[in-house]
């Protein structure tokens, strides 16, 4: 790549392309690794996903014409690679029967939950600390809910696009999104009650 000087026009072009790819990798690897780690909950596997993603990007770059949407295209590739690894590693867990979904009585009235309290004396958390707690609580959600929440509410991917990525129809994506938010809300209630969020 940065070895012998180019001897003819095609060598020169190849060298320029490689330099361009080198720059593309260095400019984008940070956010791609971060995103893959968020999806996989695993730093080592995230590196595998990013490596596979760049391999596909390199293959597809020549024919990719819409340079304005380069980042969107790369985003989709790395998400796909991370999801493939996640599926390979373990089936996305089915919707769990948990206690996070709201309860209603026989009249359809909301049964108000008694707020859970955390055993921590720490108050007035910094913005960084609350972000870390939110991040940790998201990481604890079941995969099928967590992924939808990450893609929709953090990455800003549309419902239709999430459906395509996860091979789900839109109503299912919406149900999972709502369940994910409700489950997260329940986990964050101690912070919400204390006005820390």
């Amino acid at each position, binding site marked *: 790549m940065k070895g012998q000087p180019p001897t003819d026009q095609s060598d020169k072009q190849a060298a320029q392309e490689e330099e361009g790819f080198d720059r593309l990798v260095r400019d984008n690897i940070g956010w*791609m690794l971060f995103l893959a780690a968020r999806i996989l909950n695993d730093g080592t596997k995230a590196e595998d996903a990013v490596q596979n993603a760049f391999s596909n990007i390199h293959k597809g770059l020549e024919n990719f014409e819409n340079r304005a949407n380069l980042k969107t295209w790369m985003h989709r590739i790395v998400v796909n690679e991370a999801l493939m690894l996640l599926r390979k590693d373990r089936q996305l867990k089915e919707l769990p029967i948990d206690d996070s979904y*709201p309860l209603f009585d026989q*009249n359809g009235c909301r049964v108000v939950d008694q707020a859970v309290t955390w055993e921590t004396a720490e108050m007035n958390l910094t913005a960084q600390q609350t972000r870390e707690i939110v991040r940790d609580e998201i990481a604890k959600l079941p995969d099928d809910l967590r992924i939808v929440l990450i893609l929709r509410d953090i990455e800003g991917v549309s419902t239709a696009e999430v459906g395509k990525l996860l091979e789900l129809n839109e109503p299912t994506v919406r149900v999972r999104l709502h369940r994910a938010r409700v489950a997260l809300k329940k986990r964050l209630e101690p912070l*919400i009650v204390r006005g820390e969020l």
Partner: protein
Amino acid sequence: MNLLVDRTRRRIHGVLFRLPGIVNCEEIEGFILDYLEDELPKCQRQPFNVHLAMCKSCRTYLADYKTTLTATAALSNEGDIALEDVPEDLIAAILRPRCP
């Protein structure tokens, strides 16, 4: 909330929610996503708002739901991993197949 107060509240609401044009909390739950995305049909918007006006627990629930959304969205502004923290051997592995 005191359990007795909650039970009394639900008993009163149980009567109110049987009135025509009034939806109950369980139905509201199914409207929340559409409501927040401004996709709630006009015919459902009014019953939704009427319910919220008379049900404190749903108002609190919705406020907490929105707080959760805001806290989640805040993560989208997180900086990515700085280049110096990316393992150099990973960058080398990505670039290696194309080295002469």
